């Protein structure tokens, strides 16, 4: 029996376009790894165009900790080093070729993780960054489910068998506990970790919520979080000495032609996996990830981004002309407030969302609205004010170490004043980290 945790504050946004059925395997022709997906380190590129790489070969190393690598998830040839403003590296792309897998050899498990790129797939609290070298985590939290809108499987079926050995391996890395957060009924049993049976709406799947329910992070403590897919990859690494870097991706969203699941390499080029998914002559927004925390991507030139699990396609909505929308009595406009009649038809039925922010940016007016979707012993409004003021001392006191930007996603969604809360949280955490 696991530890039962029921989350009451939260919201499951009713979005249509859930991916169903068995996943089909799609071989990526081009993969790209974007260093900005791995905050906490400055990444130095180790390859140049034309280099041949195997599955597991390093592409980048961390400037601050040379042992930590970002690796190539596929074998082939380095095609391009894509750069943006001020020659910042946006991505390294690899044209896939003949199969070749690198055996990861190192003395300790920690070194194996760093070398295999799996270290970079973990995150640490505080700061929500790739774990710092040398710190020993108080506990490790593994998420076996994702509660965000339209999320698919967290554990790719083809590597699910390695989860147990992965959890066992993680146990050797902490003096505390390894926790595995599951939905009741998911049917996951383990002896290596303490199971957290999470019930309730999103953000029940967020690591911070699980940590807060067990024992919140205090200043000076470190906690590692990772999804169970990564834990299974660690298990495979331990057992086999190499890793399967393929991911199960759910292609979802109200504007997706045929929501489906595919198994493909992490960082796979989107134009292959999205073939036939995008409506012609529609203004669409393709998001790598979910609608709350995902990254807006270009479906023809960009890649699947961390955490490599989901694509969501919605209408952009920039061409809409909604006359006097503030007076609308349309039941199609979703709001958790009952100022719109949508609540009469039931807020569980799917709504068709587009990317408009549906209002203007304002100062905070309504009180208590953010608290309703923020299941922490934290006063979000006051933390936001401290973040806006750049008051480090007050941010610490109000609990910034206990949250990650993703925890402010639902507050950002419901916010009447349309503030950019995740961006604010990320910037504040970065400033705190750099000053510490």
């Amino acid at each position, binding site marked *: 029996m696991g530890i039962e945790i029921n989350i009451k504050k939260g919201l499951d946004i009713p*979005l249509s376009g859930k991916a169903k059925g068995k996943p089909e395997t799609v071989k990526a022709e081009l993969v790209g790894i974007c260093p900005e997906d791995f905050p906490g380190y400055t990444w130095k590129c180790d390859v140049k165009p034309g280099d041949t790489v195997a599955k597991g070969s390093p592409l980048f190393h961390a400037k601050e900790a040379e042992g930590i690598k970002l690796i190539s998830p596929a074998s082939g040839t380095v095609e391009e080093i894509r750069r943006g403003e001020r020659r910042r590296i946006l991505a390294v792309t690899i044209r896939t070729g003949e199969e070749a897998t690198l055996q990861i050899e190192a003395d300790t498990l920690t070194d194996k993780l760093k070398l295999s790129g799996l270290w970079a797939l973990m995150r640490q609290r505080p700061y929500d960054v790739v774990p710092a070298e040398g710190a020993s985590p108080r506990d490790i939290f593994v998420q076996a489910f994702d509660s965000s809108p339209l999320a698919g499987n967290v554990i790719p079926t083809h590597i699910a068998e390695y989860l147990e050995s992965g959890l066992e391996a993680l146990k050797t890395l902490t003096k505390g506990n390894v926790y595995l957060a599951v939905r009741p009924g998911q049917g996951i049993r383990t002896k290596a970790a303490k199971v957290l049976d999470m019930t309730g709406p999103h953000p029940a799947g967020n690591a911070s919520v699980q940590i807060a329910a067990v024992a*919140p992070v205090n200043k*000076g403590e470190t906690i590692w979080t990772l999804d169970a897919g990564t834990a299974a990859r660690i298990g495979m690494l331990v057992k086999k000495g190499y890793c399967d870097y393929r991911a199960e991706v759910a292609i979802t969203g109200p504007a997706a032609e045929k929501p489906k699941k595919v198994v493909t390499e992490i960082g796979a080029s989107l134009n292959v996996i999205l073939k036939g998914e995008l409506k012609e002559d529609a203004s669409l*927004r393709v*998001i790598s990830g979910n*609608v709350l*925390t*995902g990254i807006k991507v270009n479906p023809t030139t960009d890649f699947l981004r961390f955490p490599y699990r989901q694509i*969501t396609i*919605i209408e952009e*909505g*920039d*061409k809409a*002309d*909604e*006359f*006097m*929308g*503030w007076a609308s009595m349309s039941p199609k406009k*979703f*709001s958790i*407030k*009952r*100022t*719109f009649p*949508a609540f009469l038809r039931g807020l569980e039925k799917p709504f068709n*969302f*587009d*990317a*408009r*922010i*549906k*209002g*203007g940016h*304002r*100062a*905070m*007016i*309504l*009180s*208590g609205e953010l*608290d309703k979707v923020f299941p922490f*012993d*934290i*006063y979000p409004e*006051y933390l936001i004010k401290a973040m806006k003021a750049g008051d480090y001392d007050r941010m610490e*006191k*109000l*609990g910034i170490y206990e949250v990650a930007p993703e925890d*402010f996603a639902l507050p*950002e*969604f*419901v*916010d*009447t*004043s*349309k503030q*950019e809360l*995740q*961006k604010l949280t990320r910037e504040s955490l970065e400033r705190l980290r750099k000053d510490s």
Partner: protein
Amino acid sequence: MSKLKEKIDSMKPLFEKGGKYQALHSVFDGFYTFLYTPNETSKSGVHIHDSNDSKRTMITVVLALLPCCLFGIWNVGYQHHLATGECGEFFCQFFYGLWEVLPQILTAYIVGLGIEFIVAQMRGHEIQEGFLVSGILIPMICPVSTPCWMLAVAVAFAVIFAKEVFGGTGYNFLNIALVTRAFLFFAYPSKMSGDSVFVSVGDAATVDGYSGATPLGQLATATPEHVEIFGVNGQPVDFMDIFWGLIPGSWGETSTFCILIGAVILLATGMASWKIMISAFAGGLGMAYLGYAVGNPTYPVTMLQPIEQLCLGGFMFAIVFMATDPVTSCRTETGKWIYGFLIGILAMTIRFYNTGYPEGAMLAVLLMNCFAPLIDWCVVNSNIRRRMKRLAA
């Protein structure tokens, strides 16, 4: 795309930076977003948003105020009829009232929104909608005979010194409508209280037994044996008259029934805190009972039945529409209980024991507006202490 939108879109460059009318950018933007929901899409963070925005929020509050407003307009005409015997028809009473209060409403909106537009342009901000609510609230809590120039001065004072100097809607710590009312009360006391300001008599002759005193005004000067309330025509008034609001007073706040409709709208849409309403009502009721129990002829207002006590004056209006203003009330849930309760107690205390002010709701809310940040500070600090304790352990 509709023809109208195409037309407006083609005008847009004229109002942007470098355009011919760039000085009117905020005004244009205000009207544009009024007509069409902005098409701005999210640039960072979440990709979809809840449909509720500041405009919808404010318009919902205005909607909740409408029953009180419409009733109040009619009641101005009805009180005129009682006082003079003229205008016996419903429509005549309604249009008489409308004719009397429309200039006030227009004055409040033109002055207040005018300042908002100018400030928005100076700061390069969008027009903020907060004054949509204040603009209708202000005339409603003033006597019907308030001259428009006074209203204009008071609105300008409140908007500039209670709101814009602090940064605009969302940053003010005092309720704008109440600051306007308090300014009028202290700057022009003779026009804000007494027997002759609450009923619009016009040029007509009054009926026999006429008195323009409000119920609370009558009681403040009553002799202890007479805790009876009379209407403007000298006839006694019963509880139902008070409940429906067929009495003189600041024109928008007499009808408890319409205030309750407003409360239902505010609570059903989630635009006001039920915690503040309930606790303020409880505080007021408790104090009314206490006052009644220790009723003292020196303070004749205490002699009123508690329920009547609550329905009279501006108390109900204040706890439903003023105390729940989210910007100036407590923002923490625990704080809301304390804040509301103290408003209830203070409002009644001032009404009972300060015979200089027949009604205390306005001052009670303004006073608690000042204390709201302190209450919140204490609540938030207890959270901080908990966190620090955990760290020390």
